């Protein structure tokens, strides 16, 4: 098992290295002179030259990469051209809303999707099952922002139960925070629920055909106990895997949700940066999200070896 943990840890190094190369190359993928792209259309030759020298764009590509990587590893993500602040500062400022939105969404989605998926598998081929699957296909097809505006229209504008947009930090009180978090997390959770419910149903359905389920039923356990103790527990590995992989989906959705609800998080930061051609921010946000995504999935993989005695490497 230790060997597996070591191998799994080592395998993230090339992945992260390749992510770093892609992120680094992003600015260099711009057609023409990246310095001119950053400087904007109204810049003169001197300003462009200044940017080129400041970013080290006049040095060989490999040198540029290692200089950049060295800075990144020390937590120096560069300086925003637009905000005139370090990118690390900007990211720290914007981290809380995105993190909170993601956490609330994961909790909400798991709380709804897993019971829904188990129920659909238990009531296989009934209307409950078909409704769950229909919701799942629908969830993958309706764009996040359409869900968002529908929820705003109904719950904020017509019923007036919740605020339309905005964000309050946790430090400003739990009530206002939660009030403004309900609609965004409900919006973002739709696609995540669709994904988790679908995989839960499939893997519970598979487990329900196993001999040990019949044995558990034969010894007189209630259906609820069979489902919880035997079916769900044995079906857990693919479900948890998909929750981890689905984080990529969640990140994409969070960017959109933040725009719909005017939440000042990392998603808004990166979209504004694209419009302002603020490449250090774009690069840093992609890097932060990707590293987080890789590390979460690493943690999930390692957790299997601890919690699932069947997995032995």
């Amino acid at each position, binding site marked *: 098992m230790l060997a597996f943990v070591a191998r799994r840890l080592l395998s993230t190094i090339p992945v992260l290295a390749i992510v770093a190369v892609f992120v680094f190359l992003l600015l260099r993928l711009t057609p023409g002179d990246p310095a001119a792209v950053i400087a904007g259309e109204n810049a003169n030759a001197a300003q462009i030259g200044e940017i080129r020298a400041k970013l080290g764009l006049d040095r060989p590509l490999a040198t540029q990469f290692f200089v950049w990587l060295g800075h990144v590893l020390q937590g120096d993500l560069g300086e925003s051209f637009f905000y005139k602040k370090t990118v690390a500062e900007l990211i720290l400022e914007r981290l809380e809303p995105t993190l909170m939105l993601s956490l609330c969404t994961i909790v909400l989605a798991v709380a709804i999707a897993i019971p829904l998926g188990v129920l659909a598998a238990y009531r296989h081929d009934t209307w409950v099952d078909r409704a769950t699957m229909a919701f799942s296909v629908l969830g993958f097809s309706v764009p996040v922002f359409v869900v968002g505006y529908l929820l705003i229209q109904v719950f904020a*504008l017509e019923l007036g139960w919740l605020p339309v947009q905005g964000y309050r930090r946790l430090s400003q009180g739990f009530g206002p925070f939660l009030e403004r978090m309900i609609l965004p997390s409900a919006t973002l959770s739709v696609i995540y629920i669709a994904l988790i419910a679908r995989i839960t149903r499939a893997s519970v359905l598979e487990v329900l055909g196993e001999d040990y389920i019949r044995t558990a039923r034969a010894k007189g356990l209630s259906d609820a106990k069979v489902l919880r103790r035997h079916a769900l527990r044995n079906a857990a590995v693919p479900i948890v895997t998909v929750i981890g992989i689905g984080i990529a989906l969640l990140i*994409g959705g969070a960017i959109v949700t933040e725009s719909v609800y005017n939440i000042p998080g990392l998603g808004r930061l990166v979209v504004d940066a694209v419009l302002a051609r603020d490449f250090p921010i774009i690069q840093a946000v992609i890097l932060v999200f990707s590293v987080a995504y890789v590390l979460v999935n690493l943690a999930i993989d390692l957790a299997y070896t601890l919690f699932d005695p069947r997995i032995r490497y």
Partner: protein
Amino acid sequence: MSAARKGALGRAVRSKGVIFGAVVMLAMLFVALAAPLLGAVDPVRIDPGCRNRAPGVECMTRDASGARVAMVPLMGTDSLGRDVYSRVVYGARVSLLVGLAVAAISISIGLAIGLVAGYFRWLDAVVMRLMDGLMAIPGILLAIGLVAAWRSGLWGGIVFAVILAIVVPEIPRVVRLVRSVVLTIREEPYVEAAISVGTPTPLILIRHVLPNTIAPLIVQGTYICASAMLVEAILSFLGIGIPPQTPSWGNIMAEGRTLFRVAPHNILFPGIFLAATVLAVNVLGDGLRDTLDPRMSKRV
């Protein structure tokens, strides 16, 4: 064509999901191509006298010859007085173009890489590490980064830049799929037989391996098409995709954002069209998966 494959095709054509998906898709294709015949006016014409009309509310405008005529905008008008119905109908062109182009390009590139990587072991490790790295970047985020890099003057214009930006994150998934097929086919007795009689490798790949990738790739292609239409809408909605001069379902909704409280029709109608089309393509994909590629349906 073998009897088994004919059977699968027959099943596919009779499947409800495939019929539903294909009919909606063809209807949207018809809408996109026949836009001028469907009563759509110029989708970019601005009319200051007809701004923010609710659906079905009459307003006076001028026709092509300058005469004053009454117009009843079926889906209302936007904040510049442009006819939302016409924009939605013309918007179908961008969505379908992006969906189909992304599916075609990513499948072609992924197929080529996957075939070669799956067949030559020494290349496999390098290519798959690259793909793992690419997959570690969340798809929409990668597309946003690439659009940022390419939106200023990539050869072929902004629509092409958006298409390519959506293609790149899809490639690793296609490569993985193709490679997994190649790895199983490579061990088949008929491939060994072909090797032993001295068939050149490119011929083995084309004659024996390629046909086995077609069914899973058709299924994967429909899913890519659906997700590409969504990603295009997301990019355009965020204001970094297709610019407003070319109406797309995403940018119509983007322009409706600021006024959505008073004029929700700007978001509602393109939203319905987009969701219905993506839903149809997803249902088509599920139908094709269940009938063409039963192995895959077991995996969820």
